[in-house]
């Protein structure tokens, strides 16, 4: 009863309806464009120009198929992905996946805080001030349990990521070249470019997203009759991710690559906009980066500790207090604090941490995907909603490609010696 709670102003009500419509797919897609992603896309654009843009197309297809599988599994079983993996794959595989997820997400969280530090430095705030404050803010947000409303606010602000579209257009990119680079993709067979491809795929289809996606589907209480809307939601979410990634790569490819300017952080990309589009654009870009970073710095450690606790059978959830769910809050605090410490160390190898945590994602991804495909084809779990043949083909194809790329990454340095 009392469902018409928001009658104060029309604006407020419309806002609430709008937020209610935001589905798991769109939220996951927005979280996906985090500081790590922005950094990786910018660096790829600066080094390779338009030559890496083609990776977004296979990424989009795999992303769509994977997220659809997540949604379907969540709707049918009502169980989280880590639950399902633990129950069906045994403890050893679970352990491997979650240790990997734990390490890569410490790296990812570090990258998010680097995004905070970098973007605030553009506004002239030292990282020794911004990082501790943001870390504390994020920590208290979750421990005090006001995280749900924060998620929505973040999401609105992350619309500022669309400024990348503007900045890309202002950079006057050579569309003909972009077109031909997409149509005739080329892979250079060397460690650097393969590392970059894995990092790009790993950041676009981050393994933790699959866990996050499935949980949000369950939390929304979606049912099979909502499936059509869920599908639209997923498509929009994936498109948001890929479109923003595309324009970041175009912007950096058009401005930084021809001049041979090497960048190391997303901050550098923001700075490089200044001479081209003026200080305002640079500031808006930096603001977008800041919001995206804080958003992901909240969600990543939270999600990670949530799935680890779920898989290992510890009490978890932000509705529990510290004493009830000690492991959960302990893990959450640990990930945040350790990431903040890494950032504040002088001469911390931030770029290496950022790229290698994306690579770790890329290596972890096939393991998670294999588990997912096996689970979703399990009739005992899924009943009539197992995969169709084409979904299996794309799923296994993606796994195959990722494994080949990962192997190439290991073998190439040996061969070139």
């Amino acid at each position: 009863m009392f469902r018409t709670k928001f009658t104060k102003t029309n604006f407020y009500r419309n806002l609430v309806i709008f937020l209610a419509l935001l589905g798991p797919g769109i939220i996951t897609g927005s979280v996906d464009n985090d500081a790590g992603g922005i950094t990786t896309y910018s660096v790829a654009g600066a080094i390779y120009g338009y030559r890496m843009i083609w990776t977004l197309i296979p990424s989009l297809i795999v992303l769509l198929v994977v997220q659809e599988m997540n949604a379907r599994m969540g709707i049918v079983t009502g169980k989280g992905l880590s639950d399902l993996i633990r129950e069906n794959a045994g403890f050893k595989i679970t352990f491997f996946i979650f240790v990997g997820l734990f390490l890569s997400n410490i790296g990812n969280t570090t990258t998010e805080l680097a995004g905070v530090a970098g973007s605030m430095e553009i506004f002239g705030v030292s990282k020794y001030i911004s990082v501790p404050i943001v870390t504390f803010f994020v920590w208290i947000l979750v421990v005090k349990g006001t995280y749900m409303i924060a998620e929505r606010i973040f999401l609105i602000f992350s619309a500022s990521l669309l400024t990348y579209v503007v900045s890309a257009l202002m950079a006057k990119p050579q569309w003909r070249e972009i077109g031909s680079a997409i149509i005739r993709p080329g892979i250079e067979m060397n460690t650097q470019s393969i590392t970059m491809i894995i990092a790009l795929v790993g950041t676009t289809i981050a393994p933790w997203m699959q866990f996050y996606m499935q949980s949000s589907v369950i939390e929304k209480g979606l049912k099979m009759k909502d499936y059509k809307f869920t599908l639209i939601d997923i498509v929009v979410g994936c498109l948001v991710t890929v479109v923003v990634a595309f324009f970041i790569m175009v912007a950096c490819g058009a401005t930084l690559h021809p001049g041979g300017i090497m960048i190391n952080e997303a901050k550098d990309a923001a700075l490089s906009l200044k001479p081209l589009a003026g200080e305002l654009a640079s500031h808006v870009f930096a603001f977008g980066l800041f919001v995206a970073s804080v958003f992901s710095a909240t969600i990543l450690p939270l999600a990670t500790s949530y799935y680890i606790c779920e898989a290992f059978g510890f009490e978890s959830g932000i509705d529990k207090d510290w004493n009830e769910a000690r492991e959960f809050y302990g893990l959450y605090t640990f990930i945040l604090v350790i990431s903040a410490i890494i950032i504040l160390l002088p001469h911390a190898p931030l770029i290496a941490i950022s790229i290698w945590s994306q690579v770790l994602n890329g290596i972890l991804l096939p393991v998670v995907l294999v588990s997912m495909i096996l689970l979703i084809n399990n009739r005992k779990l899924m009943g009539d909603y197992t995969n169709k043949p084409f979904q299996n083909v794309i799923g296994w194809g993606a796994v195959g490609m990722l494994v080949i790329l990962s192997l190439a990454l290991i073998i190439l340095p040996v061969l070139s010696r």
Partner: protein
Amino acid sequence: MTSLTTFYLSGIIGKEVFGADGDAIGVIKDLLISAVPSGLNDPNQQLVIGMKLKIGKELKHYSFKTFRVVKAREMLSVTCTDLIELSSDEVNNGLELVENILDKQIVDLNGRKLVRVNDVRLATLMTGTFVVAVDIGIEGLLRRIGVSIPIKKFLSLFRINIPAKFILWDDVQAFDFSNLNIRLSKSYAKLHTLHPSDLADILEDLGKKSRASVFSALDEEKAADVLEELEPQTQIHIIESLPLDKVADVLEKMPADEVADILDEIEDERVELLLREMDSESSQEVRELLEYPNNTAGSLMTTDVLSFKAGRTVDEVINELRIKKPEQSELYSLFVTEENDELAGTFTLRDLVVSKPMTGIIEIMKSEPVFLYDDQKVDDIAEIISKYNLLAIPVVDRENLLQGMVVVDDVVEDLMNKRRTNKR
């Protein structure tokens, strides 16, 4: 020979079984116990009766009687004198530990919450091998990846203990029977001993299939109590996934205002089907409540009220209450009505108790009570309730006929929902 050997399930799975002549026979895949844990105190249901072996490429169940588990210097070895295959009946009536218990969620009936099984502890006595407890602690996890002993030794240098956490088998309630044909009501027997709110918490944490199957195993009274306690989203899921007649039976046992609240969230078609399935008296009350728009007194009120004529005596009223045995909340306020149901006054249980038996109700009742109209918007109902120190406010229609009452419990619940929504 020791009379008692204890070992862990994780220590025995994947081990090779050796025959009397010392040759390897096959690899252990699973252990079969005689019955599903029901929380009932029955030592026989803990007995290990079978062993699933992989011999060559074949998986088969064999009787455990011919097997022996021996522990010598911390090393487990399993020997077998003879292979006796179990009939499919015996296998179907039993429960496989790896398949149904290990890594699964179970209810800890003692701690009243869901936990995940990291390992299972077994013991061999003279009379057979029994399941003793399930391990839900960190030590069990470490054991699974084979680093429990070195880590324990390392930590003992610093005098740190890894606490072991066990749940006795008697307190275990398993759920994951997806591949078994088990009579559920029997196997969930001990769940009935849990408080409805604890059961509701557990149901909310379960997967969809287990949730529906556990819920349908509850008797109607218990099911109604649990359904009331569930979050709206889980309520909807249960109502939509269970057969109509079962849901209707449960809803009949619930107060009409709660039912109306739930049905408000469900598709109209299904609501209609459900209302038709319910007995006409209950469904009529619900229908009336459903017609009130949200945020009106009518939508919040309960129609379960007790009203009496002014000419009755205290003694008569008390006797009637003894016969009716109304729920606690129905007694929050008692009403006096005219012949045509028009509200004339209110009185309380206290008024009855402190008055002499032959006193007339008309002498103890408070006339001109505070009331709400059923179509009145009630944003400030909490203030009215607290201002007049009421447990319940009568609700009347525009002709002053008594329709029901709004009780303080529902007001508090509504306030809390509002606060939660604002917080998010």
